[in-house]
């Protein structure tokens, strides 16, 4: 059974049909790419998957469980985490605290235990610190653990966002244009990081990307979205050579 199964997904904004009859099947452990021209509805698909928007119709099955109608926080608890096109970090928090915020639902102690510094506070904070530092060292961010997130260079901010998403221990990781604004070297490093995340955490990853080098370099399967509909899907190399796809990107 596929980890993520999307059937007949659709949503309209006013008169605009943003996503129509969209379907998607992602096997566990797959590195899946969602590509398409600007305005094709890719981020809208992400927003539907994470409960930011509620679809007009269709179902979304994560591990066989329908998550349509659930709130964003519920969906995160069910197992989908994401990053954002325009980076959304907790800027005034330290790098480590950003990750610890991601661990919020996995290491619990009550507010009163926190205020009165009861033993459970020290125990859980210690565990969180260790877990956060472990994750940060995977992404080579452990040196900056005490830096404010806002003061990180751009490339590292993208990495931190991925780290924070992983901290919520998801089954499926959604990356929205992870290479946006990066130079070729940073992109290359990012490709390695993404592949590394998949292998180390045995993660299933769905990503939106414009950088064709990155897409052809790491994605195993692709879906091309055009005007809110799936134009073509399949193995990455086949899709990228499909004449319909080339037409959608380059025009007639």
């Amino acid at each position: 059974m596929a980890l993520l199964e999307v059937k007949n997904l659709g949503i309209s904004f006013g008169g605009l049909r943003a996503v129509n009859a969209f379907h998607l099947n992602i096997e566990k452990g797959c590195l899946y790419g969602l590509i398409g021209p600007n305005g094709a509805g890719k981020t809208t698909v992400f927003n539907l998957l994470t409960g930011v928007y509620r679809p007009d119709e269709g179902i979304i099955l994560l591990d066989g469980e329908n998550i349509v109608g659930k709130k964003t926080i519920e969906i995160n608890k069910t197992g989908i985490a994401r990053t954002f096109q325009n980076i959304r970090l907790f800027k005034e928090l330290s790098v480590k605290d950003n990750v610890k915020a991601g661990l919020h639902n996995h290491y619990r102690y009550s507010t009163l235990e926190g205020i009165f510094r009861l033993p459970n506070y020290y125990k859980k904070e210690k565990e969180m610190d260790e877990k956060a530092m472990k994750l940060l060292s995977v992404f080579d961010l452990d040196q900056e653990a005490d830096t404010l997130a806002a003061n990180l260079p751009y490339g590292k901010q993208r990495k931190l966002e991925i780290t924070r998403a992983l901290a919520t221990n998801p089954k499926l990781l959604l990356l929205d244009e992870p290479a946006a604004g990066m130079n070729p070297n940073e992109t290359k490093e990012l490709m390695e990081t993404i592949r590394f995340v998949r292998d180390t955490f045995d993660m299933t990853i769905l990503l939106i990307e414009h950088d064709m080098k990155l897409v052809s370099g790491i994605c195993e399967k692709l879906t091309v979205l055009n005007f809110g509909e799936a134009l073509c899907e399949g193995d990455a190399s086949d899709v990228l050579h499909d004449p319909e796809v080339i037409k959608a990107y380059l025009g007639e």
Partner: protein
Amino acid sequence: MRRMKKINKTTKSNLITYAIVIALFAAVQILTSAGAISSLLQGLLVPLCAYIILAVSLNLTVGILGELSLGHAGFMCVGAFTSAFFSKCTAELIPVAGVRYLFALLIGAAAAGLCGILVGIPALRLKGDYLAIVTLAFGEIIKNVVNILFIGRDSEGFHFSTKDSLSLGLLPDGEVIVNGPQGITGTPKDSTFTVGVILILVTLFIVLNLIHSRSGRAIMAIRDNRIAAESIGINVTKYKLMAFSISAALAGVGGVIYAHNLATLTAQPKNFGYNMSIMILVFVVLGGIGNIRGSILAAIVLTLLPELLRGLSDYRMLIYAVVLIAMMLFNWSPKAIEWRERHSAKFKRKKQKEV
């Protein structure tokens, strides 16, 4: 090793804050016994404690939660009146002042916190300035309601009215406890400077420990980016409400201190209206948004400033206003910040002291 250092850093910073408060307390005690503090200033000490607690608690809403509240005095008002009502009713029942005061504190904080929840549930759905307006409206409503409330007690029990004290229909043995615009007279004067300082320390303990805990992190995450906080599974409504109601409850504590220092407690625009809310907000912004220590210092300086300027009589509030504007421009204007940074090499030492 690194981690230990980090924990020590926040603990150390918290300890310094407590130490500053204790040192200031000791200094005032020494000066008082040396007779160096005028009776006028002495009269200001207890209200000052209340103001500091209000400023610290408002900073929890404004600085940590990142929402603007213009009705903080409303929560203070709730705390003041419920606790004064309680203390006056139980003055004979609980003769031990300390015990009575402790209950008064709990009741004042609980009532104000409850109002915080009631206001927060609908209001926290609103964004930015709209939340500010609803809190402002709440503060004005509370003030208004208190002014038309008459409660009396006689051998048959409590009597309520919203008209006047006569329509309470009290028996000859009865007494009016809450007398509308005349407020509550004869609340036991249980608040002392020492008690005030202890409560400041308790407030600091609660706020600082909350900030550096799992819940505090969630609250600040919501402040920095609500959408991202939701995406990692943080319950935005719950933590917003938590921060807001804790802030309100602590404002209630400020109200309890304030009320138990007055012979007559009345709700006037000056003490519980929007002017008070604004004054506390000024403490918070001038002291640095999110900077708890700054709130304390700003509350002290701005409360004492008009008194120190008293010699200038009519001009003092004018000077206060000018100083306020000048300080805001100096602290926040991008040009002034740039100028300061350019000269910071020269004044580095001086600047560190300020920080």
